[in-house]
């Protein structure tokens, strides 16, 4: 599951290279959201954070 954001970012980079800037930035944003979700999933248990 943690490989997914790398894959979306790679697709975004390919979109940027093929001159589709909006798709590229959209995929960057999806990757960032995935990263934050994975951070909350993996790393906040010991802090007892409530979301």
């Amino acid at each position, binding site marked *: *599951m*943690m*490989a997914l*954001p*790398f*894959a979306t*970012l*790679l697709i*975004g*980079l*390919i979109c*940027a*290279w093929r*001159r*589709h*800037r*909006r*798709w*590229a*930035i959209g995929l*960057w944003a999806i*990757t*960032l959201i995935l*990263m*934050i979700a*994975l*951070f909350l*999933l*993996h*790393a906040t248990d*010991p802090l007892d954070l409530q979301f």
Partner: protein
Amino acid sequence: MRDRSVRFLNALALLGISALLAFAFADQIIFSDLPCPLCILQRLGFALAGFGFALNLIWGTRSSHYALIIFASVIGATVAGRQVLLHIVPGSGTYGEPLFGMHFYTWAFIAFTMIIIWCGLLLAIDRRPLSHGNAASGLRESGPLPQSVAASGKWITALPVSIFALLIGLNALSTFVECSTGICPADPSHYELLP
């Protein structure tokens, strides 16, 4: 002249981030030092920050590209800071071997901070993003770039972006082999997909 300098500094930043990712990847492969979930997220933070530099190289500099880099660096620094705090109490253990007296996550926190400072410097010397110079020069959201932009510094764009793309692909592959489709273990000891 200033355009070429800014382009060179963006390429330098992207190569620097690629070097960080390559170093972490080499450490993983050569020393079998499997990255923990937070380590993988820090690599992802570097990749997200590098993406903004790649956009600057491909599309020309824009304030929105610098914003992407700063957002990614802040999130990446948060992840690295989280891992530093996990191990800051004496006796709470560490993850991985130190490098020059500090662990990778501490270096990552410093690197994310340096990227933000680097962006500040680039924004200070690059006046175009604030003056909408690119929009006026005819750049569109899709389709081919104007020939004058595409032709200038072809190699300085192609080489760093290609290396960066290769490293993102390798990280995607190694993360998939390590964690498969499930949740990564907090302290991984083997690759899930390798016997």
